[in-house]
């Protein structure tokens, strides 16, 4: 246990000091992306990894977070931080509307239903003029400030904001894992009927998991909107994005606290590097690698890459 805390502190220290060692924008961007995907992965892990409900539609929450912020800022001049809160609210609402009927479905039916919902949201936004349809929204360029959540001369503040979000997500997940929520989630994953016989309202707890997942994914959407300052349906609500979230957790470690972290550390650099050096053919290679890892992990070790390390230290 002591060893784990030390490793974590070293890891944290590394993250905090990283931008001062690497001052170029590209490495900073890379780590920002890693932290962003890790946070989304933690969100997916709560519903998919701990509770065992495979969602192929979490990108919808990302999109809701991004679009809510963008619209509130662009059309009404509302601060992105408030927009973030509003995005969380809408995402929870979406989670409730989707979860309530869908959680009665079992296994594949549910997974396919999440694809259905994700696609429906995507198609709806692509054809909705109020949100810019397929063109999307260009966020207004404002003066650099924390209040405005926009920085133009350096990535440094973005880095620490996403680091903060990541640590927030990690803390939430840790707290869940150690609480009744986490235990109940795992019971639901293991045997939902047995869980009901022990007094667990499975529907309600699935909703809790889904809502947490929605919130953590939504804040990432808000961050992305403010980071890139341009959003459109295919960059924020795509099926592939949902699939990426799954991949990260599957290869990193399903239901493990640090699974998504490890997964993101593997996934993001690989994707970026193959894209930069190999073009679109490179895109194929990283997919091949991920897929084989996913299949391997599924067959051999659902604890993922993280599981390999944590077993070693026991």
């Amino acid at each position, binding site marked *: 246990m002591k060893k784990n805390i030390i490793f974590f502190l070293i890891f944290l220290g590394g993250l905090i000091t990283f931008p001062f060692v690497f001052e170029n924008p590209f490495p900073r961007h890379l780590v920002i992306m890693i932290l962003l995907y890790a946070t989304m992965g933690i969100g997916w892990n709560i519903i998919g990894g701990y509770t065992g409900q495979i969602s192929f539609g979490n990108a919808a929450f990302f999109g809701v977070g991004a679009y809510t912020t963008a619209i509130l800022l662009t059309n009404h001049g509302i601060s992105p931080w408030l927009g973030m809160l509003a995005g969380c609210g809408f995402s929870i609402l979406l989670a409730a509307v989707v979860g309530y009927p869908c959680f009665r479905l079992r296994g*594949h039916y549910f997974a396919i239903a999440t694809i259905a919902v994700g696609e429906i949201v995507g198609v709806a936004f692509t054809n909705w003029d109020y949100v810019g349809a397929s063109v999307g929204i260009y966020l207004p360029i404002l003066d650099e400030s924390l209040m405005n959540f926009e920085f133009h001369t350096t990535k440094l503040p973005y880095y620490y904001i996403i680091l903060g979000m990541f640590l927030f997500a990690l803390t939430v997940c840790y707290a869940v894992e150690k609480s009744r929520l986490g235990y109940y989630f795992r019971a639901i994953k293991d045997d939902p009927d047995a869980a009901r016989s022990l007094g667990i309202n499975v529907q309600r707890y699935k909703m809790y998991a889904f809502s947490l997942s929605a919130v953590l994914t939504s804040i990432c959407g808000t961050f992305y909107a403010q980071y890139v300052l341009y959003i459109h349906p295919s960059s924020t609500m795509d099926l592939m994005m949902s699939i990426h979230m799954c991949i990260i957790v599957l290869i990193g470690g399903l239901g493990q606290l640090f699974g998504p972290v490890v997964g993101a550390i593997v996934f993001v650099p690989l994707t970026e590097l193959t894209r930069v050096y190999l073009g679109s053919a490179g895109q194929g290679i990283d997919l091949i690698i991920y897929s084989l890892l996913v299949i391997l992990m*599924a067959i051999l070790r*659902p604890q993922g890459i993280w599981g390999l390390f944590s077993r070693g230290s026991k």
Partner: protein
Amino acid sequence: MEGDLIQTLVSGLLIGFVYALIAVGLTMIFGVMDIVNFAHGEYLMIAMYLAYWFFVLFALDPLQSLPVVTILLFGLGIITYYVFIKPIIRAPMLTQIFVTFGLLIFWRGVAQFLWTVDYRMIPQAILSGNINIFGVYVGVPQIVAAVGAILCNGLILWFLKGTRLGMALEAVAEDKEAARLMGINSDRMFALAWGIGIATVGIAGALLASFYYVFPEVGSNFCLTAFVVVALGGFGSVVGAFIAGIIVGIVEVLSGFLIDPSLKLLFVWSLYLAVVFMRPQGLMGRK
């Protein structure tokens, strides 16, 4: 206006037959071994690419290369079973979802790597152009595809109900233990189901390549629609898949025609949700 409506219905019917063909393989695999092949659409994509390359390299029309493509995909299905599926036949559902999901990503990656994301198309099929039936204009390749799909579905139905091997397959789908007690080797039946399931998609791919764009994501579009068809028809029912394919094809074009072409998918997916909420066993499925 009425002519347009009929035009729409006809094209929906035609594509519906092809959806049915794609869905048949999916529903058969599920019926026999309770696995949803999330990678089903990728095999369609592979078949389409094969048909395309046979055309480019050997000047073979898709209809001519169809037998070869079918056999190749049959083999691919069998290989897929023995390499990826057999190890997880008894694994929990989550594992099975992840493995077929991994296969989806794998084939997508292979296609992107080998052939890039560019759209390709076979410029002129052997049977092409439009014909006029009772005032309705239909593309010849579409009719060929539909006819091919109907024939193929019919063949499969005959195989399952009329041949000993086919009935053995149905027996395994119905009750694995009982089938085993009667001497049916379920392992070989599973492999056969995969072989046939993927082969049907091979036929569909060769037929579609005559008039459809070929690109790495093409499989997922059709696969997602196939899920809807399978759910509507009932997981495991071949006849259900056939009927549901037609319904979904018509719903898709009708919603595009009556409401908005870009919202077609929205209605197809809403149909899926409606089916699983209201009648999870579909039209003809078992529970």
